[in-house]
């Protein structure tokens, strides 16, 4: 019995994980737990006994709660499970893309992306953004774009958003700014004179692009070999949007504001 390691207790049973994550919300009665897990008493009590015996939960007057050891352990477990859920949803994708694009502290929080969806365009729309991205752009109340690739939308859809006077921040590589200025001078000068638009230049951006609005984040990454194929990895979770905002702050701290020459 002494052989149970805490990590085995945590990870070998889905039911135990559910009980623990539920208790992270606060103390619960056995009836709460039963109805939450939709489970009968006896199989549940077996798991509860294992958790109690390993000092992760305690019972007082019929109310179950996490011990301090349980509190720490379950918080960490939740973070690990969140990260694993993101990677497990698209394992081939994550095995293939260039992760050095992100600073380590944000990679370690990648679980905050939550329920991600990987969208590949159909052949007829091979150069278009995913539908959910196009759609959410129309109602965006703020827009951040971090990018090392030139996208046609920067002079179409994004320009329309800028016209609506919402806050727009671009972090581009010099190459992207040069292309914008040279081939689309009208759009470029329009951005430069708008008060609601800020353009920053970053010496190195190793992701293809990242768009963050108040509602959605969309990531497009290079493969480890440096190739790019059109895709949007999107999430609508609040925590994902906050993660994207932190990514913006990371790149912003490495960037200079871009002014007219």
């Amino acid at each position: 019995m002494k052989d149970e390691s805490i990590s085995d207790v945590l990870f070998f049973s889905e039911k135990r994980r559910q009980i623990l994550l539920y208790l992270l919300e606060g103390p619960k009665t056995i009836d709460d737990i039963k109805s939450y897990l939709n489970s009968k008493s006896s199989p549940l009590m077996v798991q509860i006994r294992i958790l109690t015996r390993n000092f992760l939960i305690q019972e007082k007057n019929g109310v179950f709660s996490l011990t301090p050891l349980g509190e720490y352990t379950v918080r960490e477990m939740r973070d690990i499970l969140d990260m694993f859920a993101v990677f497990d949803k698209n394992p081939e994708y994550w095995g293939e893309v260039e992760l050095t694009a992100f600073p380590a502290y944000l990679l370690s929080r990648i679980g905050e992306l939550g329920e991600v969806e990987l969208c590949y365009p159909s052949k007829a729309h091979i150069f278009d953004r995913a539908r959910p991205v196009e759609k959410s752009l129309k109602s965006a109340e703020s827009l951040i774009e971090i990018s090392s690739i030139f996208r046609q939308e920067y002079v179409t859809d994004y320009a329309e958003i800028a016209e609506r006077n919402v806050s727009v921040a671009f972090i581009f590589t010099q190459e992207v700014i040069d292309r914008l200025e040279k081939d689309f001078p009208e759009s470029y000068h329009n951005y430069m004179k708008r008060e609601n638009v800020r353009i920053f230049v970053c010496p190195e951006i190793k992701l293809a692009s990242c768009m963050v609005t108040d509602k959605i984040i969309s990531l497009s990454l290079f493969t480890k070999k440096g190739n790019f194929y059109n895709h949007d990895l999107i999430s609508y979770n609040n925590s994902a949007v906050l993660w994207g905002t932190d990514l913006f702050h990371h790149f912003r701290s490495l960037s200079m504001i871009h002014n007219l020459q």
Partner: protein
Amino acid sequence: MNSLIETVFFSEKRKAVLILLFEKGPLPIETIKSELDETSVSILPQIKVLIDNNLIIQNDGIYQLTHLGETVAEKVSPFIKNLQVLSVNPKFWSEHDTGEIPENLFNRIQEIGDFKIIEIDLRTIYYEPNPIIREHIKNASSIKTFITYYAPEYVMVYYDRLMSGAPVSITTSDYIVNMAKDYKTEINNLLQLDRAELNVCSADVKIAEVTVTDKILLMVLYSTAGNLDYDFLAAESPSAVQWGNELYDYLRSRSVNKKEI
């Protein structure tokens, strides 16, 4: 492909390989085998699972984490290491309030390494210092102590150290300082010494004691019910002392320095 929970947690050997490569960097198979005390037959199948799941790669006989593997290991490794330390005495960590230890320090609890719990016989309190504790302090060449309970029996031990030339820093609550007002003149005289330091914190910090010398970390936590059971956690590794210093510095940063009382 397996789920990451299966890949990482369902095999002690895979977990060990991930942690080893995370800590030591790229390694040839011979080193992996000898470090983990495994044979080719016992370890290669597990390594293959890690390779198939994009967590490690092999080049010219050298095994290393992929960036994905590193992201996963960076998340999982500190947790596993912390659990190893907490598992030494899970009962202690389930019955004592650790909420006041800042998260970034508790996440590094592995650094305290081997620790023991010294139980103090409550009948001796107020008369003489515990012999084990006194033994640890009496030759210390520096002492920092954060204390929120009244322990007059240790005053002479600290006084001896101060007189021997050791720097002594004490951080305590208003409440304790008031109790010491009878010795106001003597205390103020001692505080004239450069090597004596007194800081005053608010009385509601829920840590009973943190004492750090050049050789040992001693910590007393309140029970989850808020009682004091005088269970001393004692850890003697250099990393434990370093960890204790950081905890002390954090507690001191939340207090006010006093040149006199």
